[in-house]
């Protein structure tokens, strides 16, 4: 974390008790993002092989074996614990959205979309996949239902994320403070369109539009992962270039204009 503030303001020098890096909160939130996604990736792929998704038309025997695997239970427990980091990583984005010259409706939509999306798209699947190994006696038909429920909740939870990324994309495009580059707003539009592209998982049980299909999973995932990287880099730039005086935890200055700005931004 070499992002020590380059230009300390006069007020910062006066309050010597304060830590020098006043963006520390943002940097902590920022670095939880790669941590969270790495845990995510490790648990999903090599630990449990939950991802890439298994086929919706797998034979029942394979589904039962998969649902009984102990690694799957361990994976679900780890993810349910790490799940708490998702709000922190969203906080990192929201702090930058707050600086934009757009209606607060955008960031509230993002916030609620992230909350509802994470519950349906993350917590529900964890409970579904964890249950099979938790108790051995479930019948194959129950396990198949949990398997469907888990994957559909994970891949087919469309609306919340769609609105969330739409709000993010529109906020970037409409923003006049140029907090994030405008092309990122357009890129985000594709990201929310991928959520729409995934709608056929509710219909198709095999082929390119099933939940493990070329179009609905692999293509959407390629767009998503590259987008996530790029957003992350842009957020890094935005935190770095944020002026010290504009920080929410900047001390109030006796200057009337500064007071007005602070009260407006904290509203």
């Amino acid at each position, binding site marked *: 974390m070499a992002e020590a503030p380059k230009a300390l303001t006069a007020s910062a020098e006066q309050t010597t008790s304060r830590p020098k890096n006043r963006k520390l909160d943002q940097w902590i939130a920022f670095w939880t993002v790669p941590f969270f996604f790495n845990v995510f990736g490790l648990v999903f792929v090599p630990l449990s092989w939950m991802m890439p998704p298994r086929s919706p038309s797998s034979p029942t025997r394979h589904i039962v074996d998969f649902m009984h695997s102990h690694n799957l239970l361990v994976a679900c427990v780890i993810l349910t614990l790490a799940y708490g980091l998702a709000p922190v990583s969203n906080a990192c984005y929201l702090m930058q959205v707050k600086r934009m010259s757009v209606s607060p409706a955008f960031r509230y939509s993002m916030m609620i979309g992230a909350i509802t999306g994470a519950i349906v798209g993350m917590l529900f699947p964890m409970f579904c996949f964890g249950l099979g190994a938790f108790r051995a006696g479930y019948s194959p038909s129950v396990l198949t239902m949990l398997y469907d429920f888990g994957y559909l909740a994970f891949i087919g939870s469309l609306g919340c994320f769609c609105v969330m990324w739409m709000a993010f994309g529109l906020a970037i495009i409409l923003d006049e403070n140029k907090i994030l*580059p*405008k*092309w990122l*707003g*357009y*890129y985000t*539009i*594709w990201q929310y*369109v991928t959520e*729409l*592209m995934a*709608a*056929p998982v509710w*219909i*198709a049980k095999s*082929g*390119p*539009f099933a939940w493990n299909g*070329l*179009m609905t999973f692999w*293509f959407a995932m390629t*767009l998503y992962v590259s987008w996530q990287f790029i957003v992350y880099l842009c957020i890094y730039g935005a935190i770095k270039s944020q002026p010290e005086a504009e920080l929410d935890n900047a001390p109030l200055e006796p200057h009337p204009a500064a007071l007005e700005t602070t009260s407006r931004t904290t509203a």
Partner: protein
Amino acid sequence: MTDVAEGSATGVDQSQRAAGARGHVPGESSMWFFVIGDFLIFGVYFVGYMYFRGQNHELFLSSQARLNLDIGAINTVVLLTSSLFVALGTAAARAGNTADALRRFWTALAFGAAFPLLKMFEWIPEISAGLTPGTNLFFMYYYVMTGIHLCHVLLGLVIMCFVIRNLKAPGTPKISFVETGATYWHMVDVLWLVLFALLYLMR
């Protein structure tokens, strides 16, 4: 397409137009980023469609025969006409003729708005005849691709309303914004041409 239409637009101050057109990308560069990326995304869909079409040629051909070619063709004409008026409107706006530009953009908007309506006349009888995305892979591609395109059209109509608002505002309108909207609308048009050829016409 704007350039082609401009050539036919009369009453445009040649010197002014030449000055505006020389060495400049019309509209905002971020919109061009969007256009190129969108073509790439649709391109992946087109390639995927062609691949699976090659695998089930008979199924795709027999399913294709059940589409409503008439409405598809009318929609193509509607969208092309709309694009022509957008091009003419942009040319008028560049020449400083805001009243003409407004009239042309209103016409373009009216033609554009007919597209989703006609689409409903196409989709609803098909769905009630039992041709849904679950019928087979062809219809899945058909509904997904035309559906995503329809979302683009609806977004384009919203953008066009903003362009009209920009032209109506007092003072000189922001030409770059008009050009950005026109660029987007032409992209929607080009995408439809490819979709129409792939889904309705290709044998």
